[in-house]
């Protein structure tokens, strides 16, 4: 239990918020709007899973927002051009993986700092997309939304897919050797090498992985509305990094898990609708988000100080 203190405290905070909402604004829990809200977070969750892996490996990727946008637009254009979804999905995932591989190459092989590398790719991709699209929406054919299923079915499929992925990944991170490699490399790359792991390969692959997940997330976003806005991924990187960190994944690598990241994401995602339901003015939102992030890290800092005593 003590080992999961951090995750449990986030879950506790989340429960407190939900309880507060249940008391003051029970309407929050009406099934349909809630399902819609949760569905909107499904792509974010997928990307957050990737980010958790990257941060556990002691790297960071701030280009996910841009990759998300680029994949969304490209996938949207392919769909609009009449490609079947069965082809667009792998195309989008592949494109994301390709960008991830670029980041991974620069970080793992050239040993450049990931924060600067992904900053550069973030700016380059974002501005490149702006240049080409000039903000214009991509209109999609009707068959795309909810993959042609009914709305509720589509939403359930998306949420189910995201949760399924979460469960599978969380399981794999714990029960498949490769998942444990991430922790080993993130804790101490040299010790990992001595234990027969190849840290560079792991680093490269984890970037490819987050890229692929971002491409997948873009597809899950695409299926939710009949239009794609090229700005769609703006700010996604900060959102997922904050969620992952609030969820107890240590920025110094090697610690944390996907469940914590999941709880962190839900907590941060709750803020905005909670403020709406509590009829708090919108201009408090960013300050509250910032305060939550700070509280989470301060609590962590205080606790680890105590432990070190």
């Amino acid at each position: 239990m003590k080992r999961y203190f951090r995750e449990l405290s986030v879950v506790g905070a989340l429960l407190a918020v939900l309880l507060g909402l249940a008391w003051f604004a029970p309407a929050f829990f009406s099934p349909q709007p809630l399902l819609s809200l949760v569905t909107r977070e499904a792509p974010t969750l997928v990307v957050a899973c990737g980010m958790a892996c990257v941060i556990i490996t002691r790297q960071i990727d701030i280009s996910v927002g841009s990759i998300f946008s680029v994949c969304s637009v490209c996938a949207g254009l392919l769909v609009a051009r009449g490609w079947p979804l069965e082809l667009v999905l792998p195309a989008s995932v592949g494109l994301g993986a390709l960008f991830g591989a670029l980041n991974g190459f620069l970080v793992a092989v050239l040993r450049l700092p990931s924060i600067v590398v992904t900053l550069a790719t973030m700016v380059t991709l974002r501005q490149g997309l702006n240049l080409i699209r000039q903000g214009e929406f991509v209109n999609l054919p009707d068959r795309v939304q909810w993959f042609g299923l009914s709305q509720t079915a589509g939403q359930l499929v998306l949420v189910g897919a995201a949760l399924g992925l979460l469960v599978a990944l969380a399981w794999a991170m714990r029960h498949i050797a490769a998942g444990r490699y991430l922790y080993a490399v993130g804790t101490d790359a040299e010790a990992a090498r001595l234990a027969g792991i190849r840290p560079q390969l792991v680093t490269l692959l984890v970037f490819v992985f987050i890229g692929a997940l971002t491409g997948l997330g873009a597809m899950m976003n695409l299926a939710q509305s009949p239009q794609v806005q090229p700005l769609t991924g703006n700010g996604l990187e900060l959102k997922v990094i904050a969620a992952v960190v609030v969820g107890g994944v240590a920025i110094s690598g090697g610690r944390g898990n996907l469940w914590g990241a999941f709880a962190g994401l839900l907590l941060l995602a709750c803020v905005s609708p909670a403020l709406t339901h509590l009829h708090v003015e919108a201009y408090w939102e960013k300050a509250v988000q910032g305060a939550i992030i700070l509280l989470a890290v301060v609590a962590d800092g205080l606790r680890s100080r105590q432990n070190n005593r």
Partner: protein
Amino acid sequence: MSPAAQAPAISNKARRDWRALLTRHEMLLLYVLIAEWLFFYFAGTSTNRRGVIVGFGTWDRQFDILRHSCEIGLLALALTPVIITAGIDLSVGSLLGLCAILFGKLWHDGGLPIPVAMGLTLGIGALAGALNAILITALRLPPLIVTLGTYSLFRGLAEAITRGSITYTDFPENFLFIGQERWLGLPTQAWIFISVALAVGLLLHRTTFGRAFRTIGLAPEGARYAGLPVERRLALVYVLAGLIAAIAAIIYTARLGQAKADAGTGYELFAITAVVLGGTSIFGGTGTIPGTLLGVAAIAVLKNGLACLPVVMRLNAAEEMSGLLTGALLLVALTASVLPKILSNLRPRRHTTTQSTPPLSP
């Protein structure tokens, strides 16, 4: 060993230094800057319909570039010591916004005279920096996460205080002078920028403080063992960053004649880019103020120069092109910085200990 015996070795060294100097990162960046400048001078200058020389190659344009680079330049100056200590501060752009509206509020709602409001704003900037500093040094939290939190918090406070909507305007002429006029031939704010650059440069390169920053960046434990006041120096760096962000906020307000909660949005990324482009290692320990200034200049010239190129104008894409090229330039600079090491690593016999590729057969 006698001094005479050492002399030849040292002068030999000096000669090698001279060659090293020419291939230093800063020099390479200077070549890039000159090349950029010449390119835009020739490709971005023309004579217009009325026979007036227009475009990049005019003094006006050069001064505008200077004027527009001051705020991001200041933030880059603030970030250089931070990054040299192997830290990071993502909150400077948001702090610029918060300071701008607090300055406006103090002057407009508080009815304080401009100089007093300025003084208080600087104090607020330093205080906000101190918040980062306390969290980072006293609680030993990673700077990236702390300042990610304050990045949101400061911007959020700015929005909350103005409820998003209030814009402070109608600043008096003599205040706007700072941001919009020239003084002694240069845009007024350029003098402030130069002073801050000088001050930070001296602090970093000519005082024991700068020494401490570098040492902390290279070896935080080593610095502690050398009896350096690591926590205090780290705190200073973040407080200083807050202070400089406040100066940037005042200049920003004076340049635009308005203070609004969105001031400085996204500036931190430009500033970090400029610092890293200027040769400061994100891992800490190395970096210079001249490098940072060159980094800022390279980005500013690129951005403004592109806007003068006919082909870019026809595409209406100055901003996107400059973002694109800045990102690419950063990648190229980074790759170039490690290329010699990579190449020497490719040589068959290696003496490094930390390589993790499979060893070659004996």
